């Protein structure tokens, strides 16, 4: 049971994955779980080696926070699949997180640059 025992590292990793999934849905529009996994693989140029199952845990977390919504639809080969779409509050969260990341990245870059000299 993760609650209460999750290390900070796991939380950060989870949070990062959630952000990636959220961004994917914003860019690509409604997708099913398999589609999200493929997109992540594509965007990271195959560098990101995560277990694709974690995407579903991430999707559940995002559903809890109502940043995405889910509905059943038909996939390309006409199979029944569940599609996830970002919500308005999800978009707002995405904006916030993006700014946050930008800020951290900037600080880290400056720090690391100075350390090198």
């Amino acid at each position, binding site marked *: *049971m*993760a*609650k*209460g025992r999750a290390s900070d590292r796991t939380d950060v990793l989870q949070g990062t994955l959630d952000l990636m999934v959220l961004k994917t849905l914003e860019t690509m529009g409604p997708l*099913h*779980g*398999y589609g999200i*996994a493929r997109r992540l693989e594509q965007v990271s140029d195959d560098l990101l080696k995560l*277990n*694709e*199952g*974690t995407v*579903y*845990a991430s999707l*559940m*977390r995002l*559903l*809890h*926070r*109502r940043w995405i919504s889910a509905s059943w639809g038909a996939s390309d080969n006409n*199979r029944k*699949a*569940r599609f996830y779409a970002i919500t308005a509050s999800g978009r707002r969260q995405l904006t916030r997180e993006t700014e946050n990341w930008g800020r951290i990245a900037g600080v880290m870059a400056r720090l690391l640059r100075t350390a090198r000299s």
Partner: protein
Amino acid sequence: MWTRASLIVSRLRFALFRRRVDEDMRREIDAHLELLGDRYIRSGMTREEAYIAARRQFGNALSVREEIHDMNSLPWLDTTWQDLRYGARLLRKSPTFCVVAIMTLALGTGVNAAIFQLVNAIRLRSLPVEKPQQLVSLRIDQHGKGRVGRGQAGGVFTEPLWQEIRSQQTAFSSLIAWGNEQWDVSTDGEAVLGRGLYVSGTFFDALGVRAQIGRVLTDADDRKGCGEPAAVLSYGFWQARYGGSPDVVGHAIVLDRRPFEVIGVTPPGFFGVEVGRAFDVAIPLCAEPLMRGQFSGIGNRAFWWLDVMGRLKPDWTIERANTHVAAISPAVFESTVPPSYKVEWAKNYTAFTLTANAAHAGVSGVRTAYSTQLWVLLGATGLVLLLTCANLANLMLARSTARAREIAVRLAIGASRGRVVRQMLSESALIAGVGALVGLLLATWISQTLVRFLNAGTARIFVDLSPDWRVFAFVAGSACVTCVLFGLSPALTATRRDPADAVHLGSRSSTDGHEAVAIRRGLIVVQVALSMVLVIGAALFVRTLRNLGAVDLGFDPNVVVASVDLRRTTVRPEARTQAFAEIVARLGELPGVRHAAETLIVPLSGADWNGRIVSGGVVRDGDVHFNQVGGDYFRVMETPLVAGRTFDNRDRPDAPAVVVVNETLARRYFPHVDPIGQTFQMDLPPGAAQPTYHIVGVVRDAKYLRVREERTAAIARFSSTESSAMFLPIAYLAISQGTMRPPDVRIVVRADAPQRSLTGAQGAITRAINDVAPGAAVSYSAVTSYIDALLVTERLIAWLSGFFGVLAMLIAAIGLYGVMSYLVTRRRIEIGVRMALGAGPGMVIRMVLAESAALVGAGIIAGVVLALVAARYAVSLLYGVTPADAISFAFAVAALGFVGLVASWIPARRASRLAPTVALRE
């Protein structure tokens, strides 16, 4: 912070649809794996390779599904639900234990909740009116002086005072006044008394009470003169009498033979503002003169019959209102001094001050009357509940011993102690929860029965017993407390043992730690102590009741009281005296009637007439109580004449006024002289006729107001100077000398044979009365029922405490039996060795009994100490016994000693019958 809370809400939301979510997830993941597999197949792998590769890429599908499953609930919710289901399963396996535990707990909780319901209804509940916190009741602080004039029980104000307060106050947005009365609501034949209210026009409006049908009284209905008097019915009366028919509006209702138009009905649940009292019919204050005629209270500055309440203005507090009414008091009282008052009375009167008191729970005479009793009962039921918990704790301890192995295994494979304790507690929680629910159902029934018991006499008490949130909270609270009390300790003890020891258990030898045994012993001591307190209490209250039943009343209460009302007859006021005399003569001639006599006031009926007397030109200190009786009165009541004579034909209205006094009056006001021939006058306002009364006879003391007369306030003042003030000083005037006779009188009738009841003869009596005065209204009561009503609480407490005492002994006996059996089993090997070495069965029995005697003895001592402390609180409820009454204590010691002996006898005998070889084989 908020996100945390909303997350929890989300989790719960998903928890409801968990199964579907899990199912959906499974389908999604399966589809995902299939797609992955297809991709690998397209890239050239074989089916099996693709399968493996897909799963490798996906990760552990099962753990993902598990993780998601766990996300959709709160962790503790899951485990608690698990524990409860497991607990339920365990309980189902031992149905007898389950049923016994639940039923005993239900009984304990139910009785507790029933008494609390009464406490709640009488003390705690707010009135079912609009914004009851704004209600304030007004009272008069008399600064130790009395009020002079005519009073009704519960009447605080006169009508002029009410008008004056109304015009001078500025603290209240509205003021209401009401007075209680009883009217004959029948249309013919035997009188049926209904409970009535005189209400001010503001009454219903100020309380925010709207009509159920029709309309309620408003200010417009309370104009002086009262053109068309209207009446409002209560919901209960409407249902009972008119079957809830809506065409009652506009109909006439006859009150004391006067017609009123029914204009509406109040909603159900509204009973007025006095807790303990309900009304049937309410009419406006302006209609009071119609009912009371010359005895009306309107404009009468010396008739105290109204009660007043106000609704505070929005920004006023009670303290501010109190200051305000105290400030306007001088003006209010100055302007309403009765003109007939003497100087001294007027001085006392103008010094009165008004006080404002919180009244969100209404006002109540019942509240003060029953408050100690209710708390004592609540304490007793609390003890009974504790006893049941102690018993259950013992049982739970035994059960946990049986599960010792299972618990050891759980602990060994890594369950935390807290987790196992929680699981064991869930079993207790189930028992406590179900027991409390059943108890709640029982409680309503029990409290209704109690109120019906209290209403058996003439005391008509009405309380709203519908359960409100306080009762539910109380029951929930007791469930939690009992669960912890009997579940926690066994659970903690069971998990304290080293798992290694437990796993090595032999099949039958008990390896309970010392702690478990000590707890069981301790519980028995506690049970015996608590039982002692209850049994001692029972003994004290039963003795009190018996003492009260044997009180010397000064007369024989087995008389029938016939109330005769001549209002509907053609008898003129001047002819009333003769009509009554003729009725009494007729009744005396009836077969089966030995004597009959008129009386103004029937003893113990609650009516009172008192005042001071003037003798030797000096107003004497202290109140004398008066009555007006016919000549045969003392013969009817069987009060012996001690000196002189009683009333006879000499005592006509034109003859000198005569009076018969009782011994207390003679002793107190005319000491050391022969009272016969002494005279006194009544302390009356100037202007009224001041007859000089000549004492012609002295009768034995008799009770007037209460069986426990010594509680009457008047006596309390004298008790320091007199050794035994058990009776009030009473002066009996001659009814034959009365001039202005009211239209009603009470006639006391004694039957021929001592035990002969006159209920059958009531018809004959009514006929005889109607022969003399056709159309007279006759109603019957009995002095014995007045006494029953006065003693009803003592009876209730005696019965209840007796029941609790017996129950307590039973529970303690069962507990003791269980523990002694257990202790004997524990010592089996030791007993076997002793017997093998030559000890006889007698010695074994003595051994076992000694152990039990030690436990019971300790409990008795503890109980005695507890009882001594507790009994002091209930001293006001006792009569003829002190809180440390030796006989009661001795009885309790003997009873519990006997119970202890009986309960330990069987295990002792079983121990003595053990064959040593069997015992040692373990």
